[in-house]
């Protein structure tokens, strides 16, 4: 499968992601999931291509944002399917890349 879409969080969503739910404030994980991540993920699954998520340029990902977006998607769709259709890029911070992949592999139900 080839990469047909690149989702750059810093420019397509925010450089300062917020908390878990919409009611918690701006740029929440839920908002990101519903507005961008899930629709783009569905398109990738239906179109049989890979969605690349660029994590760079963001000034830190709060744990609640990661759990409310990537973790939630994994709980709903399954870790294997998510990791089959989404690939991640972070040239500046390998620890955040590891954390997001771990969150998908072992999502915490909240």
């Amino acid at each position, binding site marked *: 499968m080839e990469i047909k879409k690149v989702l750059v969080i810093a420019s397509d969503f925010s450089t*300062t*992601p*917020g*908390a*878990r739910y919409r009611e*918690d*404030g*701006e740029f929440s994980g839920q908002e990101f999931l519903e507005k961008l991540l899930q629709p783009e993920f569905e398109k990738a699954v239906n179109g049989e291509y890979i969605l690349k998520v660029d994590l760079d340029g*963001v*000034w*830190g*990902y*709060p*744990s*609640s*944002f990661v*759990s409310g977006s990537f973790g939630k998607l994994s709980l709903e769709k399954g870790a294997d399917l998510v990791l089959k259709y989404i690939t991640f890029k972070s040239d*500046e*911070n*390998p*620890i*955040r890349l*590891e*954390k997001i992949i771990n969150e998908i592999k072992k999502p915490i139900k909240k």
Partner: protein
Amino acid sequence: MKKRYILLISALVLISFVLGVLLSRIVRDFPLITFNHEIKIFEVLTFILTLLIGILFPFLIKKWIEDNRSIKSCLADEIKAILLTSLKIKAIIEKASANNNILATDKDEINFIFHEMEMQIASFQDQIAISFKNESQAISNELKKKFHEYKDYLTGGEMMTSTFTIDQKFVRAHVTHYSLFERHLKSLTHKIYHL
């Protein structure tokens, strides 16, 4: 440079030997010293071994000890840098507690400091893997585990919500979580010197 030293020492040893032989030929009645023409094999080996220790110790072993010490010191400095960065979070929480208010910009700043710490941890992970390949995996994993426990507590809970108000209960809980992380960093500094 190292080659020049070895050549110089070898030349000095040779000159001393030749001088010794010549001197013993000229001055034949040195008191208490007699030249034994029979040399046993273990005596030759002892001589070579002594010579090797004399050359190896200052030039190779001492250098190895000093290099090892400076590598450990460099790794300990990386941990100290993480500790110093983490203090900035503690200061933000203390200031917010004193003002009885935590601003959205404070939360953004905390997220950015965690990002900074992640990059420092990534750097430490790379450095330790170069010199201590066998121990690096376990040490880095433990550091990341403790870091994420602290980060998840602070940015994975109520503090990130817009309705959050800072109180003494939160500040005290934060001190406990921060101290656990701080303690791990300090123990890690000691552990590095025992590698």
